[in-house]
């Protein structure tokens, strides 16, 4: 088993230093918003700076106690993104009169608390492997929740993915992302030998046995189900990508990827032909700049306004508070990337995307470094899903691909997304801790070494 070895050093002080920089970024952004929009630094400003610092420190201290060897870059990157998101949402609140900023502060607190809880309570990420099938059941339940009458929030912006509990709305699909990743990591790490060794071979292509196709079929049904019943194109793509990468990493077989791509192509084409909402999405994407498509209800108005905003920002941006990102519908959630592109420019948006890339790189690094296959699969699944989510939403906003309503991790206004992503951060931190910790003297029963099959 070839492993990447990292010199085992805790690096918590480096993290603290980077955290100060990250906090500085969030607080400065908020200061600029206040300055440029003619606000004074009131009590709220200082309170918020203190709260953000306190929350970050809470995670940092938890890491010192519970995951001493965790990756030192991840937390500062996430704090920087979360802080910037809060500033931009606050900036939009000022011109629109919304109170999304307050809700976002509340959810940031909750999400960080959840992350701290995960770090504190989950002694070792391998424990999650015991919950493989419970995770499957949980995932199915979570995905079905928005369709249950009574708690369903109904159709919101064209998708049925929300539940409503009293004054709170929540998107269970965000959490399902994690539970599904846990299920697949558990299932694949237990069964990969069977999947790998059985099955017909045609030329260089090793075909899986039909019974081993099970998880792939579950994945396909889940993705298509989300698409059909909840009209949620983005999540559907996300789930499918998550499964594909995990199966590929588990088996190192390109045949699985090919089968997956074929399934996706068939499913995608059928969806385009059968479901009007998918047809409309694709058509408005292709003809987005057609004046009639821009003006139509359900047309390309939103994405085109976003493009106009980003073009208005150009290379250097208008400056925080100096643009008019509020003329884009859903500027603080789906389209927050366009808001950042307009006011911080190409340069600012590149920096944000680099932060995402850095975070994902650290996720992959954790996957490479950790010694157990469950941890590898979970880390790679979460990191890749994260990359895919960035791609789908930023690609959608920049009209690289059709726009789907996925959240922009850590930046967009939305509680469920914050909560889920902070939990993912906690899990990746935990796995990276395992990856960077000095090798344990003896393998635990959970982690019997398995025969590594070389990549074909």
């Amino acid at each position, binding site marked *: 088993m070839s492993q990447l070895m990292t010199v085992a050093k805790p690096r918590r002080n480096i993290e603290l230093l980077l955290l100060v920089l990250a906090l500085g970024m969030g607080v400065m952004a908020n200061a600029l918003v206040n300055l440029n929009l003619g606000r004074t630094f009131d009590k709220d400003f200082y309170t918020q700076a203190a709260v953000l610092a306190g929350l970050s420190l809470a995670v940092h201290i938890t890491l010192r106690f519970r995951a001493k060897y965790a990756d030192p870059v991840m937390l500062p990157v996430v704090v920087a993104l979360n802080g910037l998101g809060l500033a931009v949402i606050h900036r939009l609140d000022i011109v629109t009169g919304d109170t999304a900023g307050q809700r976002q502060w509340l959810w940031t607190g909750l999400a960080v608390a959840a992350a701290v809880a995960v770090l504190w309570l989950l002694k070792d990420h391998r424990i999650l492997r015991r919950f493989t099938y419970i995770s499957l059941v949980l995932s199915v339940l979570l995905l079905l929740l928005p369709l249950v009458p009574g708690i369903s929030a109904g159709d919101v912006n064209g998708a049925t993915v929300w539940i409503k509990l009293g004054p709170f709305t929540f998107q269970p699909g965000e959490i399902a992302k994690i539970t599904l990743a846990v299920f697949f990591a558990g299932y694949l790490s237990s069964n990969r030998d069977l999947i790998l060794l059985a099955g017909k071979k045609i030329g260089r292509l090793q075909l899986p046995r039909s019974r081993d196709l099970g998880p792939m079929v579950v994945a396909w049904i889940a993705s298509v189900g989300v698409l059909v019943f909840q009209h949620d194109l983005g999540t559907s793509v996300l789930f499918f990508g998550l499964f594909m990468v995990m199966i590929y*990493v588990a088996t190192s077989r390109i045949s699985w990827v090919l089968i997956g791509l074929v399934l996706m192509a068939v499913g995608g084409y059928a969806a385009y032909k059968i479901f009007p909402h998918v047809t409309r999405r694709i058509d408005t994407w292709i003809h987005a700049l057609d004046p009639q498509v821009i003006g139509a209800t359900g047309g390309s108005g939103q994405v*085109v306004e976003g493009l*106009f905003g*980003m073009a208005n920002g150009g290379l250097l941006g208008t400056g925080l508070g100096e643009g008019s990102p509020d003329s884009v519908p859903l500027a603080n959630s789906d389209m927050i990337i366009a808001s950042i592109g307009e006011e911080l420019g190409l340069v600012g948006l590149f920096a944000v995307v680099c932060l995402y890339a850095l975070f994902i790189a650290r996720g992959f690094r954790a996957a490479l470094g950790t010694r157990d296959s469950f941890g590898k699969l979970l880390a790679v699944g979460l990191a890749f899903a994260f990359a895919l989510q960035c791609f789908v939403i930023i690609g959608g906003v920049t009209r690289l691909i059709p726009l789907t309503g996925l959240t922009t991790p850590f930046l967009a206004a939305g509680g469920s997304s914050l909560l889920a992503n902070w939990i993912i951060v906690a899990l990746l931190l935990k796995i990276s801790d395992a990856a960077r910790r000095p090798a344990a003297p003896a393998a635990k029963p959970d982690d019997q070494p398995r025969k590594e099959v070389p990549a074909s």
Partner: protein
Amino acid sequence: MNQAIRNSWIVAVALFILLFGSISYVQFFDADSLNANPSNNRQLLKTFCSDRGPILVGGHPIAESVATDSDCKYQRKYNDPLLYAGLTGFFSKYAGQYGLESAMRDELAGTTNEAVFDRISQAFTGTRPQGQSVELTIDPAIQKMAYDMIPDGIAGSIVVMNPKTGAVVAMVSKPSYDTNLMASHDQKSVDTAYAKLVNEPGINLFGSAAYKQTYAPGSVFKLVDTAAALASGKYNKDSVLPNPAALKFPGIDYTLPNYLYGQCDTQDKASFTFALENSCNTPFASIALDLGQDAITAQANKFGFNDKSLSFPDSVTGSRFPGSTATLDKPALARSAIGQQDVSATPLEIAMMTAAIANGGKQMKPNLVQTVRTPDLRTVESLKPQMLRQSTTPEIAQQITDWMVSVVENGIAGAAAVPGVEVAGKTGTAEVGNTGLNNAWFTGFAPANDPQYVVTIMMPNVDVATGAALTSPNASKLFKAVLKK
């Protein structure tokens, strides 16, 4: 497993490279075109409340931005709006932008590439970008005079231009409207005014009817036939043309009658001189039938017909003479050759055609803008006369000029004469459907031996007497005014 993780990482990196590419495309490579997209009102939002440059005539602003106390710091204000509405157009948040306000929007907003350096220095000094000023070629006295010549309640357009430079000296059309109504910051009042004006007959909100509206040119189109005839080599100045009282077409129950109000019926053969002086129909119809549709189209195109790309700087509606793709039958060709049926022209196009004859066959690009200046009065752009095309040979232009002089001296455009100056002219009357009303035209230039000014007058939907009273005599007054006689 690690190799597969590395491969997945490569896929993730590829996804991010695509993202960097698409962001660069939107915010850098495609940014200009997105900013210029007609559906994009962000630039407008940005400039609507800012200090745009003025549009000047004779040193006085006819459009300017004045400071206000409201959130929107500046308000666009039009001075003498009725007189200049057709030229300035308007800059409205709620009703769009038209005319020079639209065509010169980058200069007026100070966002042209040339203005970028100014803006960089402004960024350091902290001042807001201020627009450049646009000075027009218009002579305010002539503009006013021309405007007053069109009686209230009657539609009409007048164009005065310099045939050597293409500079437009006056351009008016009636009815007009108050452009300030469109520039208001109050959306309700703009919407109300727009809804009312857009339905008012004769008002063109999108620019002066003199360059946005086309009309049947009637007999002034005979100048095109004449040039085509001489250019073909089949005719010369001594040619004898058939001049029957009516043109008959075998097998069709249709005859084309000669012009009623001259002396055409006195002879059944005619020289060019006689045919033009009396504006006889049948000789020119015969020429067109003889030369064929393509020859007439080719000559019309050389005078600027069928050109949809002209801007001066606002875009000019294309005038039309059908080409061979739309084949006209003989009666239709005959009627088109006398400026009816399938022919239509803007008053500006007729002025440009006349200017080409006046300028030895060289057609100059018309232009309204004399200079563009930065706020510190540096000239960044000034009118450079530009040749559009060679419309005809100098010899043919001279020959037509001689005949046009005789039209004024001996023919039906006599009222356009100016004592002591040789005036070249041609009238036109085009029937408007079966209403009994006509489009009355005069186009001409003076002095004929050294043309300084072209005057084109167009009065749609008038009876013959009104048309005659409002065209040639007014041309004479305008010539006197511009030549200071």
